[in-house]
């Protein structure tokens, strides 16, 4: 399907919470698409506060339903707890699309715009770990966001799965700890990991806050030679650590593109130009063609896979950080 421009749909883009850079980037992408498609309706960027994320997301979804919005794009932070609200939004005829982080059970969700393949995330992380630690391998630990973050949990699970392959047999995952996406907590957790596991060689942080905090902690304590940091990070935040070898390698995708793609998919469904069934193909403006497919990483649910991963290292990080 190629989108017909100028059809009206009031849409809402909902991040996990307000005040985080990557979500703002997604908003930029969505706004870009909004203009491009000349939607006479409105695009609102509404989100809760970090302290009140779960209840706040549910509240915003419910209010959007009451307001009679045509569609909502959710970066879900509430796990399955948002499902009842999502279902009743669907019952009222609203389009519910998730991005960044899906509803695990897929209940109430029409489509998930996956930034990358979640299984691939696991492999990418395992590969980075292998690259950094070398064939000799050794101990490494994961510093995640909160224990409740669905996408982080999925990635970690995928990584554990990937690690079973013989290629990674020298890598030894010793612990998973949580920094709640707060700099101070992540920083302290990273240091504690070093103390707890004297032979630790790597901290893998699949969260932009965690990876930056961990890299800084290692740098401040002069541990960069001993313990490296890797994971998912923003080039702008990581560039100095990559250059001084504290975090030689990390990965991410474009959040601007993710917002852009999510908007296209949601617009098409909300305006009735697309049904959102497996096999459908649509054109997302400058990003080209995408196909709706069954999500292989979840029991239920459909997804659109954006991809690809960009793995950053000394060679490309500076350019990307501009």
């Amino acid at each position, binding site marked *: 399907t190629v989108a017909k421009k100028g059809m009206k749909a009031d849409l809402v883009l909902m991040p996990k919470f307000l005040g985080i850079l990557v979500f703002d980037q997604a908003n930029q992408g969505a706004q870009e698409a909004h203009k491009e498609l000349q939607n006479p309706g409105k695009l609102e960027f509404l989100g809760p506060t970090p302290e009140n994320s*779960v*209840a706040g997301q549910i509240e915003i979804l419910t209010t959007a339903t009451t307001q009679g919005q045509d569609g909502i794009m959710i970066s879900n932070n509430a796990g*399955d707890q948002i499902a009842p609200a999502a279902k009743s939004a669907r019952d009222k005829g609203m389009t519910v699309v998730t991005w960044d982080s899906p509803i695990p059970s897929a209940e109430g969700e029409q489509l998930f715009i996956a930034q990358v393949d979640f299984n691939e995330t696991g492999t990418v992380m395992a590969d980075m770990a292998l690259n950094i630690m070398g064939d000799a391998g050794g101990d490494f630990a994961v510093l995640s966001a909160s224990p409740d973050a669905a996408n982080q949990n999925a990635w970690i699970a995928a990584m554990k799965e990937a690690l079973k392959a013989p290629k990674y047999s020298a890598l030894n995952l010793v612990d998973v700890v949580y920094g709640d996406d707060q700099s101070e907590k992540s920083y302290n957790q990273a240091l504690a990991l070093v103390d707890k596991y004297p032979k630790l060689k790597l901290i893998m942080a699949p969260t932009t806050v965690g990876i930056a905090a961990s890299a800084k902690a290692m740098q401040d304590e002069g541990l960069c030679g001993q313990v490296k940091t890797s994971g998912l990070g923003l080039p702008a935040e990581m560039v100095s650590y990559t250059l001084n070898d504290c975090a030689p390698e990390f990965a991410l995708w474009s959040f601007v593109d993710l917002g852009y793609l999510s908007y296209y998919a949601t617009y098409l469904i909300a305006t009735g130009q697309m049904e959102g069934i497996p096999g459908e193909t649509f054109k997302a403006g400058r990003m080209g063609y995408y196909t709706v497919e069954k999500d292989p990483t979840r029991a239920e649910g459909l997804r659109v896979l954006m991809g690809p991963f960009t793995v950053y290292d000394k060679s490309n990080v500076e350019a990307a950080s501009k």
Partner: protein
Amino acid sequence: MMNVWKYLRSWEGFLCLVLILTISVNAVNSDAFLSIDNQINLFTLSIEKVIIALIMAFIIINAEIDLSVASMMGLAACALGWLVDAGASMPTALATCLLIGMLGGLFNGFWVTFMNLPSLVVTLAMLIGFRGLARVLVEDRSIRVFPSWFEELGQQPILGPLPLAVIIFFLLLILAVVVLRFTGFGRYVYVIGINKEMARYSGINVNAVKLILFTLAGLISALAGILFAARLGSVRGDMGLGFELDIITMVLLGGVSIFGGSGSIYGVILSILIVLYLRNGMSLSNITGHLQTGVIGLLLISSAMVPNLKTYWESLQASRSK
């Protein structure tokens, strides 16, 4: 006529005025506001906090505070999920959860009464402690095991448009008004709040009253946790995180003195309505996140200033008439 005037100048009168103002502004601002759906929704979305606010009013009037309610709520919900997951029958699991609530409350009460520690300190510690136990039970999982009747009970209306939680709230509200206003126990709650040594010297069993209150707070928090689990259909370790401050805000805005000894359920219910309507009105006007919290904060401070302005005004009048 005199009475009406006098009422309007009382605290409750002031709150009433603010409430009417909020409702009118909302009604003008959004067509959806006055719909039955929205009215029920705005209640349902915060019903757990609102229920706990009732018992919190008792505790603050008693010159104590309970910061652990939200953690207890999370603990009870997680315990429910854990128990059902482990194969317990629903009735057993529910009863166990309520028991956990009572025991937790009793535990708080023990330190406050027999060990004579300030409740702020005890419940601050248990805010961390109960939350920790909830985490121990569910770890990084999201447990989704409830039978469908349980979820329906939490999500579907059962009496007219009213869901179970709202009905429970109204029953508890009536009970709270009667107990606080018209019973001997209510009188004791006030007297102890005014001066607990004096109450002891008057032959009142101060410790018993306090123990009962803390136990009830635990019990009702557990009940709220169960309702929360039913409404969201699944449980996670972060349920109700940070609710305690919202709950306390509602109670204080209702004119309950933080120093104990004064306040009424009537004021609390008005302030609950104000907070809910204000939040809902803002959400409907697409004001979310921190701005919403900021407005509530501003309201809390400015409303606390009104009685002082009143006395100032009166003294001004008095000095002028002289």
